[in-house]
């Protein structure tokens, strides 16, 4: 019934290629999508399929692309600034200023979103306590573990109360308890009408929490729908489906090649 609402994101014929001298590398080859409020989208695909590129384009980090992207009814190319105010982004690879403390970092990011100092402080405190990070709030992050940095990144991604949240490998480095916390957070945000768009390689989690799974391979979306709709007789799990659709199903013969490599000589 949510589908009747107007979509949060529409993507029409999105193409992106990176050129380097003579070689041209086409990463996205024409993607068309409509994404509605309240959906949790699991965006999966093999390494190098174009997942991060898609997310970076949607967040405005890569500004030039072919095709049309509309978010909240506004064109991304011409109204990027307005759109960015309403989205959140959790980058991969732990990109943050680790010489700051979580408190300082959240204040910095919040100020960039134009939040008032008072409400910002309150919100940062609540987020820190939700993630169990109060005691580390004023410690420099260069000594933090990967998981603690990741939590700070997630907090900074939602500090502006975004309507769309993009996450790139959000669960990397998190311990099992934190994974549960993040899963809870995502479901709750979605039930409040926010759109969640996340990339992951963890098939079992994608299978469980996504309303809709997008499988991208070689620059094209090759599967789109609920897991129940997508699964076939041969693929009882998302992992198997993934392997089947992206050409990894002959893994048995691959293993033979591997053994051969070691046994010759």
């Amino acid at each position, binding site marked *: 019934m949510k589908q009747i609402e107007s979509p949060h994101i529409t993507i029409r014929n999105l193409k992106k290629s990176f050129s380097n001298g003579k070689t041209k590398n086409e990463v996205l080859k024409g993607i068309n999508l409509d994404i509605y409020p309240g959906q949790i989208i699991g965006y999966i695909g093999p390494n190098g399929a174009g997942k991060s590129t898609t997310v970076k384009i949607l967040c405005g980090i890569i500004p030039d692309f072919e095709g049309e992207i509309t978010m909240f009814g506004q064109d991304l190319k011409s109204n990027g600034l307005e759109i960015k105010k309403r989205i959140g982004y959790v980058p991969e690879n732990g990109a943050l200023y680790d010489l700051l403390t979580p408190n300082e970092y959240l204040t910095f990011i919040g100020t960039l979103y*134009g939040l008032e100092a008072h409400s910002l402080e309150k919100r940062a405190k609540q987020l820190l306590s939700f993630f169990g990070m109060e005691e580390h709030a004023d410690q420099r992050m260069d000594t933090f573990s990967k998981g603690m940095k990741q939590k700070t990144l997630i907090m900074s991604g939602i500090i502006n109360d975004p309507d769309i949240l993009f996450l790139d490998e959000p669960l990397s480095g998190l311990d099992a308890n934190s994974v549960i916390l993040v899963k809870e957070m995502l479901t709750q945000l979605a039930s409040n009408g926010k759109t969640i768009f996340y990339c992951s390689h963890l098939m079992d989690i994608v299978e469980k929490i996504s309303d809709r799974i997008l499988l991208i391979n070689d620059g094209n979306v090759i599967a789109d729908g609920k897991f129940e709709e997508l699964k076939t007789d041969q693929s009882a799990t998302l992992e198997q489906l993934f392997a089947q659709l992206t050409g990894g199903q002959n893994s048995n013969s691959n293993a033979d090649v591997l053994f051969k490599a070691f046994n010759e000589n």
Partner: protein
Amino acid sequence: MINFSLFFVRLFRKLIQLWGVDYPQFEALLRNKLVLDFRRNPSKHKSSKKKKNPFLSQLITFASIGGFIEFSLYSINDILLNFTILYSIIMVMLATTLINEFTAVLFDERDNDILLARPISHRTLLLARLMHIQFYVGYIALALSFISGIVLAFKYNVLIIIAYFLGVGLSAWITLLFTIFFYLALSKVIKGNKFKDFITYVQIFLAVVIFGGYQLVPQIIDTDAMKHIYMSVHWWTYLIPPAWVAGFVKFFTFTDTMNMAIFFTLALAVPFFGAIVVVRFLSKGFGNILGQSTADKNSLIETRSLKEKFSDHLNRLFCVTEMEKLGWKLTMKITRRDRKFKQSVYPMLGIIPVMAILMLKPDFRDFTGSIHKMGNSYRYLFFIFLGFFGTMSIMQLPFTDTPEASWIYKALPFNQHGHIISGAVKALLYKFFFPVYSLLTICTLLIWNIRIFPEMLLGGLLTIFMSLIMVTSQKTKLPFTQPREVQQKGGTMIMMFLGMFLMGAIIGLVYLSSLLPAWGILIISLFVMGMIVLTNRFIRSKKYMII
């Protein structure tokens, strides 16, 4: 210091907003950058308490250079000329520092993932970056002009001195605007990775020009004539930025008011409107450069790894063991691709022709005559000395941007670290010293004749021997394992002076050997060759600390 600087910037709040910048975001970005810088630096200098803050010692150097400049200009009586030259020098020095040291800060792409997804306009981001750089450039400009200011105080009144320091601030800002304008215009013509390569070449070119300039300009300036030179104002004088600032200062002497009022207006209007043009209209180009660099990471760079180059095969000739060959190949490949390695090595090579002219001082009015005269002297020994610059790449060998990758040396079951080092050193000698020294030898054979070839051969072999000795005497680290920051602690400087000292000894030896007949020199050369082989063996067998 951060709060003071931010307070100072806050005075211009209205102006900054006029440029189309979101002030609270701007201040947050600037504060963040300064905080990060301050946290990064002190920890470093805690670890080595003896060493001063590198930025501080840089400032002291700049201050003494600035003082020296004004002393040499002191005899100029024309105030406009004096200040035009002074501001020209300040601007050129600032531009060089900007291009060489702050380009990386301007186009820093490491925080792309943090910043570009936030609702920050290109204008705000660009101005924050510019101000961050201006913070340092301002200090450098102040250091450069500080002693000059004191010297000038003996000559002019207080009003002029105040105007002079204001002028320094304006010069710094004008230089910054022109530099960024140059970059943005350039980025429209040259795209992507090529843009970065091009900047590398500009940096190398500048390093050489500046080095040559330092040596040559004082020799050209004739101090006696300077006293009577007058700078008259032509239409094109209005096109020279340093003249604006000089005119801005002269305006306060209240002479020649008409012309000076024009300069005064230019000196204030250009920084203001220039900033509007750059921040308001060109900032989109800046955003595209940043976005491009994110994109570059995603593009695959095909390299001809399958078709190996000729030099990759040559290792069979020079390398004894498999591990040595590996060190050679690794070094060949990385030196070919690492932009920063090129940046630190190529200027050294560019210095060679400048040094050649400086040391030989040929008379350009009677070039053939002076070359002929040289043919009867011992000056070819200088060429042997110049070959030394070809070996300096070895000092850059340990440094890399990805020191983390050195875990392989610790974790892998392998202890032939010496072989990697000797292979790498051989590769560098082959790649940089060999062509440089061959070229130098050809030059000497043209000016002198084949008769000195044995001496050149001996000189080359001794230089190789010396650089190997320096490798063994130092706690040489494995190739490409040390972070680049360590480099700034002045170790390279000391090594360079030690090398130059040893080069003096080598030249003495070659001079002595020239008293022997040619076959005698060849026998000594054979002996040195043997020593080189032995030293290499020693490098290979030595145990190394892997840090």
